[in-house]
């Protein structure tokens, strides 16, 4: 099995030997559009580069790193302790690079009267303690909670960061994609959910949130996210093995260069502050 794989790799390498630096990126669907665009413009400048981008999820990316089937793992969450242990057991050490930031906006139907919530209220809503909008200052309307699938890094980040590691209520509706969350919230009056800041459109309205028990409420925007006053913000990562650093470094460096960060803003994520 291994020999066959190596054989095909050897053939591929010998075909492009000398001219091509082939690289594979695999992992988080959140990072996917960003990485694709970075790869596209990087290849425009470096004609010899050949970069393949594949999705699947942060977990898929990191386990591919372990199997050696990818050069760079894209991840929307920090590498887990278990994954780190597995890698170090296999005698591999990884390097981590933060390539951008992503802000999560809490969104509701535009007809909803509620404009702001505290972290504690959000926790109660997503764990199912609060079930009606009137309990948080809105109309007498059942709260319908939308979440991403439990497999997504977004789900875990929200759980860790906003819900302080408590589990979601089992009645939460989980959607496979951010697009369908927006669509559903746009057509359901009592709906609430969370999406990447870049996705906020007319169909939904973003809430102001407070992480200091209601003293300051902050609306999500490029400015508040860059200035770190907006609290629900997470980094996006590339992970790669230290042993292949020489190969992947030029591309990773391009991503965090000024040019690469311009693309970050174009795609709708928050560029790294200097």
């Amino acid at each position, binding site marked *: 099995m291994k020999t066959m794989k190596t054989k095909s790799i050897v053939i591929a390498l010998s075909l492009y030997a000398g001219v091509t630096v082939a690289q594979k990126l695999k992992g988080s669907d959140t990072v996917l559009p960003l990485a694709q665009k970075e790869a596209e413009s990087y290849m425009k400048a470096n004609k010899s580069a050949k970069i393949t981008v594949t999705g699947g999820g942060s977990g898929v990316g990191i386990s591919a790193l372990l199997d050696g089937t990818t050069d760079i793992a894209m991840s929307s969450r920090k590498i887990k302790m278990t994954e780190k242990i597995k890698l170090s057991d296999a005698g591999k050490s990884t390097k981590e690079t933060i390539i951008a930031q992503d802000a999560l906006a809490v969104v509701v139907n535009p007809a909803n009267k509620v404009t702001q919530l505290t972290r504690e209220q959000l926790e109660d809503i997503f764990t199912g303690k609060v079930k009606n909008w009137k309990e948080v200052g809105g109309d007498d309307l059942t709260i319908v909670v939308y979440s991403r699938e439990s497999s997504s890094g977004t789900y875990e980040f929200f759980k860790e960061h906003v819900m302080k590691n408590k589990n979601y209520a089992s009645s939460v509706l989980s959607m496979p994609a951010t697009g369908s969350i927006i*669509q559903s919230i746009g057509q*359901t009056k009592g709906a609430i959910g969370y999406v990447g800041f870049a996705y906020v459109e007319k169909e939904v309205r973003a809430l102001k949130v407070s992480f200091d028990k209601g003293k300051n409420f902050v609306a999500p925007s490029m400015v508040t996210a860059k200035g770190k006053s907006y609290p629900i913000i997470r980094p996006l990562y590339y992970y790669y093995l230290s042993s292949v650093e020489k190969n992947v470094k030029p591309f990773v460096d391009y991503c965090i260069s000024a040019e690469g960060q311009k693309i970050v803003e174009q795609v709708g994520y928050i560029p790294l502050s200097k």
Partner: protein
Amino acid sequence: MNPFFKKFSEKFIEGLLMISGTVTSLTVVLIVFFLFKEGISVFNKKAVEEGYVIAVNKSNKVNSISPEDIKNIFDQKITSWKDLGGKDSIILFRLEDISTYFTDEQIGENFERLPACISRVVDSIPQIFAFFPEKYMDKNFKGKEIEAGKISFNTFFGGKEWFPTAQPAAQLGAKPLILGTLWVSLGAILLALPLGLAAAIYMSEIAKDKVRRVMKPLIELLAGIPSVVYGFFGLVVIVPAIQKLFNLPVGETGLAGSIILGIMALPTIITISEDAMRNTPRSMKEASLALGASKWQTICRVVIPHSISGITAAAILGIGRAIGETMAVLMVTGNAAVIPHSILEPMRTIPATIAAELGEAPNGGVHYKALFALGCILFVMTLVINLTVEFITGSKKYKKH
């Protein structure tokens, strides 16, 4: 031609055909093997995440704890050892919390002093409930490791909660998923089968040739619409319609899934059963009509019995398409893992669960295996449906003779 060679080539071809005939059986056997090998191994696994331990202070009286209680403790629904037969409130400790007790220097660059640190924390706080990797358990650990039981047949099939990523103990109750799958696909087939058969009868026996010639390729073409498109169409058109029609808080319901799946199964059901009906020899139909039977009687007594195996195939393929359809259902049923009480509630199906979670489940872990176990359940479900349909049509054939 040499008669020997002729005989040989005849045998050779028969052998080749036989091998092709066994390919499907072989595939099924292989699938069963792979599926069940992974799936069955989920049972008797420890409920606590592999490679992790949970431990308490030595003075604590609690010796064992159920996975459900563990989840409730971490959700802070249980906050006191009193609820579990001990005393005092619970203090949670995760590996990440180590930095609040010790500095990076004390732990060491490569975590070499981490086991000793953990041991010290657990030993010094009587109310502690600690959760950390087995690897970092000190040789002379001063706390008490406690058992959380194993995943059994009962907890898997009878459990009401599906939280596969809950830490430290995953909640693997497949009951809501099994029920959700059954509700959605039975609803779909109840909608699609009568409609599909009616349309097939119309096309093969009643409609004029001209109409048929337009209708048939059109329906065949529609089998090619990708499921993501149906899913998106369902989300934009059917979900809001159901919400308005039944005045519900949410439109993402089992019914929406059933309707979409029903529509998706229609082309398969219609084309195959229509082909079967058209293959009824004309002589049989004409004989029936000549004997004074009406067209309706001819359809019921001659055409349908003759084509019953084709209709069976249509039904099975249709159900197969409905029960296993993933992407469309994922987008319209809401995917809430609760036990459904009516078709107007959000539901989560097994295929949707596998598709959504497999990418992220660590290869070989409990969650990964649990998803394979779900695959086994799905397989058994389709098997039961196939056998039932076969049995029904088989007994009908008997009556005919």
